[in-house]
């Protein structure tokens, strides 16, 4: 399923199939058994829960994933990440805390609130991502 560029959602978004967001969402996103892709045009201001989260756009809020969070090179995240596997590509911007002890360890408010704008990420190679196995 795809939420297009012109769509603005305020409130809670949940579902049981893979979802790609290109628009704006404010509130909460829950796809606990599915893949959520936050596209390059998306602007998310929400707490995000999914099985796997791929970030190519802008997210302000905590992200919790049961399996993996993947911030791609154009992705921007201001918030905390909780997942067993986290990968942050060179060029991505991130500010917050990373918890790889397992998913769901952050409380809803996040206990290490990011305090300023995110900063670019460096990776030794110019490859797309560094995957924590």
């Amino acid at each position, binding site marked *: 399923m795809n939420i297009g560029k012109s769509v603005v959602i305020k409130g809670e978004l949940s579902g049981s199939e893979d979802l790609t967001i290109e628009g704006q969402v404010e509130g909460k996103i829950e796809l606990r058994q599915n893949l959520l892709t936050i596209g390059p045009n998306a602007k998310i201001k929400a707490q995000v829960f999914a099985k796997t989260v791929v970030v190519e756009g802008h997210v302000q809020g905590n992200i919790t994933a049961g399996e993996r969070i993947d911030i791609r090179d154009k992705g921007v995240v201001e918030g905390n990440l909780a997942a067993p596997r*986290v*990968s*942050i*590509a*060179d060029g*991505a911007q*991130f*500010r*917050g*805390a*990373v*918890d*790889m*002890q397992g998913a769901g*360890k952050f409380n809803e408010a996040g*206990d*290490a*609130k990011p*305090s*300023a*704008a995110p*900063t*670019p*990420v*460096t*990776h*030794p190679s110019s490859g797309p*991502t*560094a*995957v*924590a*196995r």
Partner: protein
Amino acid sequence: MFRWGARERTADVETPAPRRIVETLSASRALPKLLNALTAHESPRLLDLGPVVGANVSFFGERLSCKLMIEDLRVDIVKAVQEKRLEELPAILSDRIRSTVPEPVHGVLCWDIFDVLDRASARALAESLCGILRPQGVLHGLFSTKASNDDSRTKFIVESESALRCRREPAEPLPRYALQTGEINKMFAGLSTVESVLLVTHAREVLFKKA
């Protein structure tokens, strides 16, 4: 008349040379000890003063199953320098550490942050970091031995349990300060030195531990 071979190049308009990224691989004696100290704790909490390096996030997360808080202080330093508010920097840094770290941590990764701090700011940051370390907590830092005024920064990328890749790349220009070993030890007077070694890049790598 014909001319053979490549056409002779005419004088080009002078273009600035692309700024180079220089990488050096250094063996690290402190890194294995840092990992050893942190693995003694279940789910350690670690503060990383930036820059955010994806490979380091993966490395520490995977090896230690830790919670990693990332706070790139360079952003504050650049802002203070640009706005000529250097005298406020010690307080800005102390506040930032206090607000980022809600409870004491098992480890701190300083990377090269002390290279771009004047003495007063460096002392204030060191004091704040000593304060947020738990007993038996460890602090890893790299300190330049040469002062300069250039527009590059060094990023340290953990290559393995005992090697660091030092990557010099373009950045906002900031004065780089050099600290003598005695000054470093004095700043972290509340901590004991576990390891202090000069890397091939001429940065001093130091591991401190809180009693």
